[in-house]
């Protein structure tokens, strides 16, 4: 019974992680870039959610404030994600065609990491490093169910967005080949921006759901969850949307199961061991396709 409970809790926790890892996997699928700043967008999303929910009037109608605050926070986080892309990644892309004598592989990673550090410390300056408790909108026993249901609904919507709309088709085309997509009349810059917006909105939603069940907001909260989410994306097969969901749920369940053992502090050690085993046995991830690279 304890194990079953842990698995249920793990699936709820994991679906929240999956929301964040979707952002990583979508950006990686298109730009082949680890967007380190994604974990900070997650954190910023939680802060936006906190401030907006309180701002919309928690006392008068908590339900309305919660929903409106969440939606507004998602919009703000989406704008933040687009801004990050415009400031840090777009200039590099614009230039990388012309010059090849520099260390081109490492440059986008450095800007991504720099952006992450920038946002994290900016949050520390703006919001201070103290832990803030999130308003208890839902009774704690329902929170898990809500987290799970919201996550599943969003994932189905995302599946429709990627496989059922024109934008999704454009996104997939860009991820296969940017140049060819541009020649087919797809505005690649806009598609990339929209990918960042979508991923960031999901991250903000993940952040708010995380706070609903854990109830603390602080500037470094993105580090642990961000790392776990990226690991989830890699385990599931980076670039694959169902893979990110599977990886997220797997990591959530592993995390909850280790809490039953006396080694609860070693949760991340186990997660990274799983990652290394997956990289050794099946480098393309559980659901990823091993592609042949043409030169």
């Amino acid at each position: 019974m304890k194990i079953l409970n842990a698995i249920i809790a793990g699936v709820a926790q994991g679906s929240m992680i999956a929301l964040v890892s979707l952002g990583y996997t979508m950006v990686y699928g298109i730009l082949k870039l680890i967007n380190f700043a994604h974990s900070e967008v997650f954190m910023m999303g939680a802060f936006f959610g906190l401030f907006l929910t309180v701002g919309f009037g928690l006392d008068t109608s908590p339900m309305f404030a919660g929903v409106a605050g969440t939606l507004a926070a998602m919009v703000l986080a989406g704008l933040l994600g687009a801004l990050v892309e415009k400031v840090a990644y777009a200039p590099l892309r614009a230039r990388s065609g012309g010059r090849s004598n520099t260390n081109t592989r490492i440059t986008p990673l450095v800007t991504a990491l720099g952006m992450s550090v920038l946002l994290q410390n900016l949050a520390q300056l703006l919001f201070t490093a103290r832990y803030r408790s999130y308003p208890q909108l839902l009774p704690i026993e329902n929170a898990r169910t809500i987290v799970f249901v919201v996550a599943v609904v969003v994932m189905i919507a995302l599946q429709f967005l990627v496989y059922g709309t024109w934008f999704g088709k454009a996104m997939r085309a860009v991820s296969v080949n940017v140049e060819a997509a541009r020649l087919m009349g797809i505005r690649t810059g806009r598609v990339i921006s929209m990918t960042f917006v979508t991923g960031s909105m999901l991250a903000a939603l993940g952040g708010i759901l995380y706070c609903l069940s854990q109830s603390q907001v602080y500037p470094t909260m993105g580090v642990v969850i961000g790392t776990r989410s990226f690991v989830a994306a890699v385990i599931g097969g980076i670039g694959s949307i169902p893979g990110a969901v599977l990886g997220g749920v797997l990591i959530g369940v592993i995390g909850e199961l280790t809490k039953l053992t006396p080694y609860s502090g070693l949760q991340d050690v186990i997660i990274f061991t799983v990652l290394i085993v997956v990289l050794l046995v099946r480098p393309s991830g559980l659901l990823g396709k091993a592609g042949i690279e043409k030169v």
Partner: protein
Amino acid sequence: MPRIVRGVLITALVVVVLIWLESGFGASPGFQTVLPDAAWRQLVLFAMVNVVIALSLNVINGMAGQFSIGHAGFVGIGAYTGALVAGHLHVRLGSGDPQFANSFIVMPLVLLASGTIAALFGLLVGLPSLRLRGDYLAIVTLGFAEIFRLVIATAQTGGTAEGSVAKFLASLGGQNGYAGPEGNGVPQYAGPFWIFGSVIVATLIAWRIKFSGWGRALRALREDEIAASAVGVDPTRYKVVSFVIAAAGAGVAGGLFASMHDGSPTVQPDSFTFVQSFDAITMVILGGSGSVSGAIVGGVFVTVTVKLIEQLQGLESIQAFRADHPSIDLNALRMVVYAAVLIGLMILRPEGLFGEREIFRRKRPKKGGGDPDNNAAQKSQSTQESTQDSENSTPADKESTESASSKQATSETLTTAEGTAS
């Protein structure tokens, strides 16, 4: 003078100067004569340790182009190993004040142990992640460094530990840090002799790695892995061995850090957080990834600014300002500025301050500058240099280029002086 005699003489001179810095031949130690202020001595030694960190990270980040963002983890492993070895040896040697003579027994073993253990962990981390093309190393090193720190910081120290692993972790002191086997501080054997000596050796090794067949293979891998493997460079082997070298260098730096003169007597897990890893990356990128002299300049610069901010926080006016604005965290401000500088640098000048060039050596002709004759001359010079690559770390070569450039510099200053006079 034959090259080998010159080499031996220069080495002997360097060793004598280093010993003078450490012991002063009976008089007061030379290092204290040069820098009477203990805070300054600590800053210089700390900067040198950071230079070793930057040089080692430069091998994997700059030369091989693989992004490792958990370098502080390897430094930490080296530091804990070094502290353990130094502490236990110190007890064996009869405790008391650390003697310079004894450091010839302690320090080689400390550096060997910290380097080896860090290299083993480097192999463990690098082998699965570097087999693959892509940026898996980044995320694995990030996780590794964080796990290392958390395992040590959250170890239960209250005597309730069971099992040999838990007992060992408990003996490392958890969040409070490790303070030697008897709890009275890690013996501080690493004086200027060992630290400056390590910097010199590390510089020479980095230089030889860069201007060798190995270094060229690494650069080829960095530019295009598929093309490089097509001409016979085994990517996994080159990448993994370079990563292990980098980890070993970080371990040695950690060993020095643990037993540094005037340093902290305890080794604390908080000295090896992500902030330190990011500082190490800043040192390498700022100076110019792939440039040995760039890593040295970057290491010194970052250490000095970090120290400067610590000093600033002690000033009364700053403390008053902080009392008025408690939310302003100077360290967070520093990180914001560093990150912004790094992003700006990547966008405007992705090769860093020096690019891949070295201070004492002109490897590539200047882009777009100068008349064609000059360019051609430089080109022929650079080809000449690359043919002598195996020999060019001899001091003679460096000296000549150095004196030439300094002559040029003086003539330039002379002409500008004349210009202002007239």
